[in-house]
């Protein structure tokens, strides 16, 4: 053991964060030790407060500090169209394009048998409930263009077929790998305008 117990614990905790290797964890830990009390306290409070106050929107699954999120509450948005995405971060990517004025539905994942994720682990029931209310006329499937995103879109398209809603898919001429998050805004905007109906 190179470090005293508490420091070791901090490094281990930081090292569990995504994208943080042992070296970065060590650097961050040293930085936190050398920073002022108030700054360190601020970080700790921010983490606890975010965890306490942020939760999933009861309608769409987006992050919110209220019961329903800013987007679902916005009366200016088009309530006849809902865009289905994998993760909250995809909502943000699409919002940045300023192209879309409808509602969202976050699945909270994507079908991937290798990771033990089947349709039952996604927020699909909640989507069906929303559709039953009858106001939504079009569902845009905006899962990523990789094979898992495509499998999820195909699964949903088949599931929604008996319902009287139009089901469309983003027109992906998207870059390799097809991660929505990494697509530039112009490409995303174009994918939106060119969306097509799934047979």
């Amino acid at each position, binding site marked *: 053991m190179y470090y005293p117990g508490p420091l070791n614990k901090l490094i281990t905790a930081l090292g569990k964060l995504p994208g943080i290797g042992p070296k970065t964890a060590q650097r961050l830990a040293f930085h936190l030790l050398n920073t002022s009390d108030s700054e360190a306290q601020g970080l700790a409070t921010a983490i606890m407060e975010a965890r306490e106050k942020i939760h999933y929107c009861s309608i769409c699954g987006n992050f919110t500090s209220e019961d329903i999120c800013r987007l679902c509450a916005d009366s200016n948005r088009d309530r006849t169209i809902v865009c289905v995405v994998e993760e909250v971060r995809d909502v943000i990517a699409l919002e940045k394009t300023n192209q879309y004025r409808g509602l969202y539905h976050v699945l909270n994942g994507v079908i991937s*048998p290798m990771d033990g994720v089947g349709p039952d682990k996604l927020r699909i029931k909640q989507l069906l409930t929303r559709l039953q209310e009858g106001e939504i006329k079009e569902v845009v499937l905006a899962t990523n263009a990789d*094979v898992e995103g495509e499998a999820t879109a*195909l699964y949903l398209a088949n599931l929604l077929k008996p319902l009287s809603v139009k089901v469309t898919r983003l027109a992906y001429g998207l870059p390799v790998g097809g991660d929505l998050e990494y697509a530039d805004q112009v490409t995303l905007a174009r994918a939106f305008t060119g969306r097509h109906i799934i047979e």
Partner: protein
Amino acid sequence: MSALSLEKLRLINFRSYEKISWSCEPGINIIYGPNGVGKTNLLESIGYLGIARSFRQKKDQQLINWGHHLFKIKGNCIIGGEPTEIEIVYQKNKKELTINGFKSKFLQLLGIIPVIYFGPDDLNLLKGAPAYRRNFLDREISILDKIYCRNLQEYRKILLQRNDLLKSIKEGQASKNELEPWNIQLIDIGTKIIKKRSVFLNEIMPFINSLYQKIGRNENLSLIYKPNIEDPNEWRNKIAINKNKEIQTGNTLWGPHRDDFSFYINNYDARNFASQGQQRTAILVLKIAEAQYFEKVIGKMPILLFDDVFSELDEFRQCALLDLLVNSNQAFITTAEINKLPQNLINNATIWEIYSGKICKKI
């Protein structure tokens, strides 16, 4: 036509080389030294610049010099008069590629430095398991066609996911109706792969025919594609009818991952009915045809990597290979016995000797 040649190769901790910087020559480079001195490793590193993979089917981790934790390959090329620098660094299970100083995706690398490798193991193309031939098809078509390469990656992922799902269904952890999205993609992407393999083999045939006529003395060589399944409708039916069989085995039973092709000489399967000499000729012809086909499709003659193959060929076949070398921009030829190479090859080449991890020019 844009000429392609490697000017400088730098290796760090790649195989037997801890650190070298080698300024090679355009035209023919002959590399000699006793067996085990690292001649093939050198060709392997040049090949790696072409496809970011080892043509010896080795894992990247195995390419690191013993006791180190990374390897680096850097090549400076002239392509149609333009200097191009490619660097690949592998460490911690990750590869990074930079092209002219810019971080790039590996798909962008394909086709920049096309290489053709020809070595003693290539007889496996004819005699070995089908996987060997599929690897060959996949590597060559990927160099020519980035979309094919991407489809391959997708197909492999679909197979992994689908096989996992089949097993989950068998164990009662998933339901059969979850298969359909994977079936659709399997057939969709799979059919694209099958079509491109078929086109590749068809398009390379004229080159093979005319070459084999010359070298093989009035015999006919043909490559016959044997797709495991071809028609998407038939495929769909097979999957539907044999659903339970696939679930029981936990395996995807139809698709291009089970393809093969065969060499036929005068309508006889060369694997069983050809002499050793005929088999060698067939492989030689395939390699030369590939080089000619690459030149036609991507507009540049690939860099040729010939690993200890001259000594195995008779004079007649050596001549055919020499013809190709004369028409190439750059070739790297290894040998353990330089006196076994044709004299007119030696006269037109730069000779290098490898010893104790260094490459020295022989004057």
